Structures are given as C-alpha cells and as structure tokens.
C-alpha cells in the first residue's frame, strides 16, 4: 500500500488535467492487512474549483443481474454470516474540501472485534464530490426563469481487510458465446473458491478454423461470490464469415492497475467453447 505513494501522488499531479469538477481517487481498490489495521486513499482535485467531499461506507459486493450486467449488491444491515467490515472500519475525515490542484488523504482505520476469524472482510468506500454551484442558465434580460443543475459524482471503491491465511480461486462453467450484430458476446458462470475475493482479469480470444485470431478482449473483474457476466467486444471487421470458431476464455490474477503485493495469486483457469456462424 505504501509502496509508490509518492510516485502515485506525483503522477496524479502531473497527469493530464481533467476538465469539470470531481476528485481523482487512488488506489481504486484498498487492501488492509490485519497486522497494520489501517490504510489510506488519496484524493486529488485536478479542477479549478474547490470540491466538497463526503466520505461514507456501505457493505456490498459485485454481482450480476439476469442479463449478465455487473452491479453492486448492497446490504443495509449485513448479518454475521456476511464478511462485512462495515461495523468496525471507519474513514477519516468524513467531510473535507479539496482545493484546486491539491491532494488530501483519507485514512482508513479498523477496529475489528478481538475474536475476528481469519479471512477477508469487505466494505465499500463512497466518495461523494460536489463542486461549487454551476453557472445558472438562461439570459437574464430575456427570461425570468433560470435553471441551475449541479452535477455531483459519487465514486464507490472496494476495501478488503485480510486477517490470517487467505486464499482465492475461481471456477468457470456454462461458457457460451454468440455473435450478435457486429459484436462478440460471451456469458460464463464464475464461482469463487477459497475465502477471499478473486480479483483478476478475463481474457477471451476468438479464433477461426485456421487458428487465426478474429476477436479478442480482456476485462478486469472481481468475483466475490458468484458472477455470471455478459462480456463482449465489437468485431473488428464488422461481422464474421460463416464457419466454426472457438472461443478461448481464461481468468487470471494479473492486474496491472493494482499493487502486485495485494493481488492474491491463483492458478489461471481456462475453458473454451465452439461458436458456429451460420
């Protein structure tokens, strides 16, 4: 977590300035070790106006709906069967103002119960950012009714707290693929193994009968319990000629966007399915 914080801060400051109002949040996934019991999130305001930030927490985890859309399932009052850190992990400060081109640190402090069992516990950090009032629209001398709509943003990131030995893995089943319009669409059932969330990446490659790659994509995702994601990509040529194709599908714990020290390793899992274009 601490590794590279200076570089992170420098990179955020020197990075491409974003228009509009909001705050950059890094990292986008926080892992806290029980031996340390604390973590931090860096906020940076690349805009020209101060941004009011409110921090809160909730319990939730990614799941999928019947269409394969990934969504956050939230639980207002998680019971004891849920691996929730909501009751004992807090963020400070909860309200702050980040000045233009300034950065602020949010501290995460855990006070877990003494009898906390080994495993991984989750909470979600909600970073709500609100800039100053936007200009009111409407010309003063031609209308007496003016409208001012403020755009606010809330960013929700995951915080995972680990105590003792933790392990993860994932199993694939029900792999399917279909060409819909000009897109390759895939469905699969990903079921987590072990006692910690699987944070990894899906890589999919569609090859034709000669072994040539006709489409490929990769998508980072986290499997907390079970996920049945609908993932896809546009076909480069717009469509596929008639024939038989194979979809090669693999899930790996390789995440360039996260500190390797916090990504739990697990063996890659692979599956494949035939796709026929009539």
């Amino acid at each position: 977590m601490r590794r590279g914080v200076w570089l992170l801060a420098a990179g955020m400051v020197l990075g491409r300035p974003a228009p509009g109002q909001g705050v950059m949040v890094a990292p986008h996934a926080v892992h806290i070790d029980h031996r340390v019991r604390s973590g931090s999130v860096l906020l940076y305001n690349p805009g020209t106006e101060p941004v009011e930030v409110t921090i809160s927490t909730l319990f939730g985890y990614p799941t999928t709906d019947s269409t394969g859309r990934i969504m956050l399932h939230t639980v207002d009052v998680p019971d004891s069967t849920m691996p929730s850190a909501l009751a004992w992990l807090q963020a400070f400060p909860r309200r702050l103002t980040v000045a233009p081109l300034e950065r602020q640190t949010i501290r995460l402090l855990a006070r877990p119960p003494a009898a906390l069992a080994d495993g991984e516990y989750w909470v979600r950090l909600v970073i709500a950012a609100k800039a100053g009032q936007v200009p009111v629209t409407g010309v003063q001398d031609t209308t007496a009714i003016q409208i001012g709509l403020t755009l606010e943003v809330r960013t929700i990131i995951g915080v995972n707290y680990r105590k003792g030995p933790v392990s993860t893995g994932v199993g694939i089943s029900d792999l399917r693929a279909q060409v819909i319009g000009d897109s390759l669409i895939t469905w699969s059932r990903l079921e987590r193994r072990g006692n910690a969330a699987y944070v990894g990446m899906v890589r999919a490659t569609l090859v034709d009968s000669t072994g040539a790659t006709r489409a490929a994509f990769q998508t980072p995702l986290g499997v907390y319990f079970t996920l049945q994601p609908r993932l896809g990509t546009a076909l480069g040529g717009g469509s596929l000629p008639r024939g038989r194709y194979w979809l090669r599908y693999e899930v790996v714990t390789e995440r360039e966007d996260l500190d390797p020290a916090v990504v739990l390793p697990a063996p890659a899992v692979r599956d494949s399915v035939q796709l026929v274009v009539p």
Partner: protein
Amino acid sequence: MRNVSKLTLAALVLAFGVTTLQAQTNSANITATATVQTPINVVGAQQLNFGNVFPGVNKSVAATDLTNGGRFDVTGQASAPVSVSFTLPATLASGANTMPIDTYTGVHADNAAQTGGVAFNPVSGASPTLSASGELFVWVGARAVPATNQAQGVYTASIIMTVVY
C-alpha cells in the same frame, strides 16, 4: 500515466543521486522500484444547459446534444466494467416554488464525440466498460416543464451520478 511515472521516478532517482555524490566520494548503485496504481476519476464535465425557459413552454435537452447535454467523464483502468446509476431530481426548486423535470435520457460512449454511443435510461442506470484507453463519457438529457403561471426565479437541483468501480 506510466510515462509520467517513469519520468517522475527518473527525477527522484536523479535527485537522490546528486545528494549521494555530495555526501561521499564512493559510489554505489541501488535499484528503485515502485508500483503506480491507476486512479479513478469521475467528474461532472458539462452542466445540463436548458438555456432560456419560458412559462408554459416545455424545454427539452437531448442526451445526444453535445453542446447542452449534461456530461460526466470517467477515467480509470482500461476495459474496466463499471456500474453507473443516477439520483435524478423530479423537481427543480426556487425557494418554495418548484418546477417539474422529467423524461431523462442517457447516452454513454468511449469517446467525447459520442461516436458509437449507447442509449440508456438513467432511471435504471447502465453497466458500460471503460475504453481501451480507460475513458468513458456519459451524457444526460431531461425535460423541464414550467407551468403557465411559473413563478420567476432561479430553479436549482442536483443530478448525482454514482460510479461503482
């Protein structure tokens, strides 16, 4: 991001190197390693601009209106799926007076020109994927419905976009 970080790393190593030379005549090499974590950035980039509004005349702004539609920009890890949802006001308020706002529309795209944009209903949200360069643009349109006897005033409200990463 990575290029910037490499430059920064180089600058830090250079600075450290100068200090070392001043402190001692012997030289030694160290290996500096660092991990750069991709930040996520969600901003309200462009307000939803209704322009002039007159009593009794509904005024709509389409999500496809690049000039007047409200726009949120998201940047983060390439190809990352995100869940986008909205808190949408049903009324605008000016003191005790209110004005209905309804018929929200939405479009998301991986470019600011909205090429290949996907329409969605902001009421139910969307689950788009960041582009290969880690970008996502979301537009919101709506309709303001002033009454024929709508009182004068400045009517305000907030549109909140929540991004789950």
